[in-house]
């Protein structure tokens, strides 16, 4: 088993060896903690989207007079923007009123895009932080070396009131990913493969660490995809440890000081998995569970009514670039709708300025405003009974994107783009430039 060696200066030699999760949660609780300990942790950052309306209701019922620290709360809308129903508009309105009344400094309304893209872009996320969000994919921020996890609305209200949350210190699963991802095979294929191997509850309650040459090679964007979907195998948090890419990403986004927090090389982890990803095929998760994963060649040819590229999993510049590489100069198949949803305004502007946007639109794509898009089945591309959709999103549960009698298939941006061209599941390696 190959061990990663970290410079001795990065950790205190006198301290008992600890995992990343232990270190962050020890700092947050003010004592040395061990897996299984139940602790009260001080939260560094608390994020909510539309469901801030639900948090707000519980917060008022608690009867606290003010937020524990308004600087540490970030709010925005991304799930239903612009408001798709009157009720959604009322929810937005109640949060806007609260933000104005409290004078909350970190509110992006519906201007910026998906929370998990916007918080890193705006410099709210730094290595070693303890972050909670009322969204299950809050695990995404692990890509920048933060310990971050999803919580519910009521407990977020308690965080708003007290700044603290009870947590169980998790065990750690370490995934050492060796080899090289080839051609259009991407971080999405790697994480789908892992989920297929581990099962939808295979990492329940664990902190999953992603290490090894494949992760070193991966962009911050790819690491976000991996950490984002770590929760689809039950992980409490996913993490890729900071390196020069993390540093480059954070430069210009935050002025705040940060120190990387890494697992000690001799820390005890519950399990280590060595996986050689050499020769990995593009992966597809078939309906109706995220762990129903097969290589694309096994199911190529299944007709698709819709294709979606976007979401907190795969709506970044790198993802649109991969899609454009497949679509450039070609046309989406008749009878298939390709919907592209940039993850954020920053991504949207980049796509516009770089010409990627016009290329995608020329290929026949419909490009919507940045946000969650149709991923959670609220709007912007719902499915009729009997329809099939291949998407770069993160869940394919029954009824996820519309009718309970529709089907969602999960894949990488390149695979979704190739499938949109063919009007059926297709192998992107056949059209990859």
């Amino acid at each position, binding site marked *: 088993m190959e061990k990663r060696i970290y410079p001795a200066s990065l950790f205190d030699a006198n301290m008992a060896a600890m995992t990343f999760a232990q270190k962050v949660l020890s700092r947050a609780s003010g004592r040395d903690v061990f897996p299984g300990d*139940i602790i009260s942790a001080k939260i560094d950052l608390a994020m909510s989207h*539309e*469901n801030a*309306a*639900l948090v707000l*209701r*519980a917060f008022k*019922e*608690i*009867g*606290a*007079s003010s937020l524990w620290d308004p600087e540490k709360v970030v709010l925005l809308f991304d*799930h*239903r923007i612009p408001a*798709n*129903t009157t*009720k*959604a508009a009322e*929810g937005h309105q109640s949060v806007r009123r609260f933000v104005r009344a409290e004078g909350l400094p970190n509110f992006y309304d519906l201007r910026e895009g998906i929370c998990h893209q916007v918080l890193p872009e705006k410099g709210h996320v730094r290595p070693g932080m303890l972050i909670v*969000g*009322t*969204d*299950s994919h*809050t695990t995404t921020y692990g890509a920048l070396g933060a310990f971050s996890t*999803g*919580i*519910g*609305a*009521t*407990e977020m*209200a*308690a965080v708003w*009131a*007290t700044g603290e949350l*009870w947590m169980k210190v998790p065990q750690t699963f370490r995934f050492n990913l060796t080899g090289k991802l080839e051609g259009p095979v991407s971080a999405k294929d790697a994480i789908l493969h892992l989920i297929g191997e581990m099962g*939808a*509850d295979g990492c*329940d*309650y664990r902190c999953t660490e992603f290490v090894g040459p494949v992760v070193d090679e991966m962009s911050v964007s790819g690491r976000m995809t991996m950490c984002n979907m770590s929760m689809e195998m*039950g992980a*409490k948090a996913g993490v890729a440890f900071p390196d020069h890419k993390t540093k480059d990403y954070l430069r210009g986004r935050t002025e705040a000081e940060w120190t990387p927090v890494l697992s000690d090389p001799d820390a005890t982890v519950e399990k280590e998995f060595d996986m050689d990803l050499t020769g990995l095929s593009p992966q597809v998760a078939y309906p109706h*569970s995220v762990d129903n994963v097969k290589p694309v060649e096994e199911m190529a040819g299944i007709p698709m009514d819709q294709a979606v590229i976007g979401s907190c999993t795969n709506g970044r510049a790198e993802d649109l670039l991969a899609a454009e590489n497949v679509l450039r100069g070609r046309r989406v198949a008749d009878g298939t709708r390709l919907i592209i949803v940039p993850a954020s305004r920053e991504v949207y502007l980049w796509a516009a300025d770089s010409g990627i946007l016009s290329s995608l639109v020329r290929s026949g794509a419909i490009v919507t405003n940045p946000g969650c898009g149709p991923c*959670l*089945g*609220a709007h912007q591309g*719902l499915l009729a009974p009997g329809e099939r959709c291949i998407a770069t999103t993160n*869940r394919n*549960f*029954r*009824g*996820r994107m*519309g009718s*309970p009698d529709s089907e969602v298939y999960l894949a990488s941006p390149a695979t979704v783009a190739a499938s949109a061209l063919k009007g059926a599941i297709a192998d992107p390696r056949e059209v990859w430039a």
Partner: protein
Amino acid sequence: MRGRVWRYGDHVNTDVIIPGRYLDDYDVKNMARHALEDLDASFAKEVSYGDIIVAGRNFGCGSSREQAPLALKGAGVGAVVAVSFARIFFRNAVNVGLPVIECDATGMFEKGDVALINLEKGILVNETSGATAKFEPLPGFLLEILKEGGLVAHTAKRFR
């Protein structure tokens, strides 16, 4: 507590417990009307107060939506017994005052059986068949939150 049993399988996810299309409505009565709609359309119509759900692995996997336990509680569900729970659902359930019991009772109950649960002692009884099972009771502070009706009431004590 005592209730009539509804039996479900593994990986009952939050999208089938309360589909995304209904998440703009924060009224618990309306959530309850759609509880488990995409898994079992008969549930919301026929469920009665105190009924108990017995399910397999990874109950409540998926989204962090608190509407999931709220919809079940609003529909009258008295407790969910499952082999295992997804972590956010587990937390949300306790926080909204819906008892969750980790116990493999899948082989012990048929739909419609009557279950009797003692949360503190960790005992589960099928009154219809006579079968019994033991489970590890929740840690004391979680039982306390449940007894107080959820985290709002529990936290509110600090601000009184």
